[in-house]
Structures are given as structure tokens and as C-alpha cells.
């Protein structure tokens, strides 16, 4: 009995798929860390009174959000040639850059939306007691906005995680790529894809559940 389970096509693919999951998580997490930094800066740019800064960040956000991530990664990987920038971009690097840009653009809007969602009265109350604009942002607006950013940021994690599956087209051996390689060799297409999806779900479902609890706790 145990032998048949252990020998099932579902289980056999696992070690191979887990290798893929590792890379999927590395791309997602690294991409999101850089994406958060980029997004926070771009989000601030979108709130800026300077027309130039506002303009640049708006173009960035619109271009990235208005084009498919698949086109972006192909552009980064194949479109930008080695002659042009002097270094060869590996598939993994291209993948991380694509997630960074993409998450960055969406996080910029999350940041902007969170700041805008804070009642204007908060800003006015801060200024009315004599705080500078900077102090008001720092002590009053940001702490409240940051709380509101947590649920959409968690959501962005799930989206970025799923986006990494697109990188199989540039032969990054993330989870889906590993699955495809595996079923091409064994012809166990159905079983392998079931396992691939289960692994994605094992990350995304708990994340959603945690998010929902956090949301309730934060009352946002």
C-alpha cells in the first residue's frame, strides 16, 4: 500500500517540482523586495507636487501596467541585447527585473491609494498644531497609510508569485517550467500539472487566509 502511494506519479514528480518552487520563491521574494523599494519611491513620485517627478513616475506606472508582463520579460531578456548594455542578462535576472518593475508599478499605486485614503482632516489637524508637511506625513499620514497597504501588498505577493510562471518561456526553471520538463519526459501530464497547481495553492491559500485575518485585525 505505502509502496504504491510512494511510487505514484503524483509523488515521483515532487522533488523535481520542489526545486522549481525554490526558484519561484526566490524570484517572487527578491522581486517584491526591490519592487517595494521601487514602488515606494514611485508612489511618492506620484504624490509629488513637482510636475517633472510626477510625470516621470506616472509614465513608468502607466507603461508597466499597460503592457503584458510576458512582453516585458521577453523585452528584457531578448530585446535588450548584450551589445547595448555590455552585460549578458541571465534568465533569472530578467525574471527578477520583470517582477521588480511590475510589482513596483502596482505597489506605487498601492502607496498612492493608501495615502489618498487617509482623511484630509488628519493632514489638516497635523498642520493646525504646527507640524510641518514632512512631520505630518511622518507622524500622522504614513503610520495610518502603511496599515492600509498591508492587505493589498499581500495580494501583490500572490499576483507576483503567479506571474513567475510566465518565465518558463525564457527557460527559467521555476515551478511551472519544472513541471513541463517533467511531463515531457514522463508523459504524466495530468498528474504533474495537478501537483504543480497544488503547490501553488499551498502557498497562495494560506497567504490569503492570513491576509484576511490581518485585515480583520487592522480593521481596514
Amino acid at each position, binding site marked *: 500500500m505505502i509502496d504504491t502511494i510512494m511510487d505514484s506519479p503524483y509523488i515521483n514528480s515532487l522533488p523535481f517540482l520542489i526545486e522549481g518552487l525554490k526558484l519561484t520563491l526566490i524570484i517572487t521574494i527578491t522581486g517584491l523586495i526591490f519592487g517595494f523599494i521601487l514602488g515606494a519611491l514611485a508612489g511618492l513620485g506620484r504624490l509629488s507636487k513637482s510636475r517633472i517627478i510626477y510625470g516621470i513616475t506616472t509614465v513608468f506606472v502607466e507603461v508597466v501596467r499597460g503592457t503584458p508582463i510576458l512582453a516585458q520579460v521577453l523585452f528584457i531578456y531578448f530585446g535588450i541585447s548584450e551589445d547595448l548594455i555590455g552585460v549578458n542578462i541571465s534568465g533569472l535576472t530578467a525574471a527578477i527585473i520583470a517582477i521588480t518593475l511590475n510589482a513596483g508599478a502596482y505597489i506605487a499605486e498601492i502607496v498612492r491609494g493608501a495615502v489618498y485614503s487617509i*482623511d484630509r*482632516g*488628519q493632514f*489638516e*489637524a*497635523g*498642520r*493646525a*498644531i*504646527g*507640524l*510641518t508637511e514632512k*512631520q505630518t506625513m511622518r*507622524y*500622522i499620514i504614513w*503610520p*495610518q497609510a502603511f*496599515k492600509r497597504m498591508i492587505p493589498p501588498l499581500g495580494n501583490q505577493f500572490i499576483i507576483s508569485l503567479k506571474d513567475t510562471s510566465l518565465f518558463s518561456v525564457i527557460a527559467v526553471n521555476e515551478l511551472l517550467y519544472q513541471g513541463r520538463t517533467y511531463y515531457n519526459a514522463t508523459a504524466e501530464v495530468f498528474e504533474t500539472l495537478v501537483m504543480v497547481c497544488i503547490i501553488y495553492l499551498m502557498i497562495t491559500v494560506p497567504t490569503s487566509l492570513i491576509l484576511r485575518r490581518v485585515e480583520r485585525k487592522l480593521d481596514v
Partner: protein
Amino acid sequence: MITVKDLHKSFGKNEVLKGIDAKVDESEVVCVIGPSGSGKSTFLRCLNLLEDITSGEVTIDKETVNDPRTDINQLRAQVGMVFQHFNLFPHKTVLENVTLGTTKVKKLDANQANELGTQLLEKVGLADKANEYPDSLSGGQKQRAAIARALAMEPKVMLFDEPTSALDPELVGDVLEVMKDLAREGMTMVVVTHEMGFAREVGDRVMFMDEGVVMEEGKPQQLFESPQNPRTQEFLSKIL
């Protein structure tokens, strides 16, 4: 204490204040009444430059508010403002709400700030709420906390924008009591209000605003009992 000369304020093409002249003496309590949309809030918000002034001049304690050389943050610290919707900081405790400005603007150290904050919370009857968050307070308590927050800056002038109109009727009294105490202590106050009882009892002068101008002003007794302007008469007949 406050002088307003030919104050105009437009939002885009919409001129909301059409030339206001006013004077508030030290320790005077001036109540501002008038129909909705007449520009009462805008007038008040121009006094501490929460709204840019389109033209005219506002001086508070000899400092011109709308002079680019004036340190507006320093000036705002001396002009307390109380809002209709309290605008307490929800992520800070009641005491922290009161002490924030004293530590960040007046640069008191934490001990001094807490001492002053606790004293003020006692004054407005909220000593026992110091460590609670605003969410757990009633409307009247929130407004009293907001008053304490403004007082912590030791302002020369207090501006109130309909401080009781978001409150359940049974909670209005406590807030008005605190304001009466302030008036008795000699605070200079400008109060936009619908509480005619308060205006009558505490106000030294009442200004009636309509369509962006001061239509009439005078002692409460005089303005309420024998209003001269037909618009004032009409307004008062509706609300009294």
C-alpha cells in the same frame, strides 16, 4: 489680537469670501453664524492659512499670516483649531494626541509633555481616558480631547468650527462647558456655531455671514433681539 482686512478667497472661479473685514480683541469671544455654504469655515480656515488667501490681509498678534516671511508653522502652533469632526489621530492614544505637537513643535521633553498633557486631560475631564485610543471615546469625549490637543500648544487664539454639530444632543453640554471655561479664563476665541444659546451666553460679539460677506455684527443681545439686516432676520427666524 486678530485683524482681517478685505479678505477674499476663491476656489477657482468660485469666489467664496468677498471682502471680509473683522477684528477680534484679546480675550474676546466672537461667534460666527450664518447659513450653510456662506463661507464660515473658509473664513476660519483662512485665519490659520489652512486655505491660501486669495487677497487681503490677516494678522494675528501683529504677525501677518499671509506674508511669505512669516513662519507659518510657528504661527499655527499659536492658533489652536478645533474641527467639526474632531480629526483626532486614531493611531495614537488620547495622551499622545495631546502631546504630539508639544514634543515635535515646541520640543518639550517627554516628561514635561506628559505632565502638561495629563493636566490638560484633567481640565477637560478625560484624565481616565489618557491611554485609550480615540475609537473608544464618545463624540463628546473626542471633541474634548481635540480641545486639549489644541490647548497643549498654549495658543493665543482658539478657532472652533462647529465643534458640537457632529455630536448627539446629550453630549453637546460637556463640550460647551469646556469652552465656557476657556472663555472665562480669557482665551481669545472665534467660534463658528449653530448653538445660539452659547453665542448669547458666552459670545462678546456675533458676526452673521451670508454669501461670503459679513452682513451684520453686534452684541449678541442686539443681533438676536433686534437684527437690522433683512437677511439676518430671515436667518434667525428660521433657526430660533
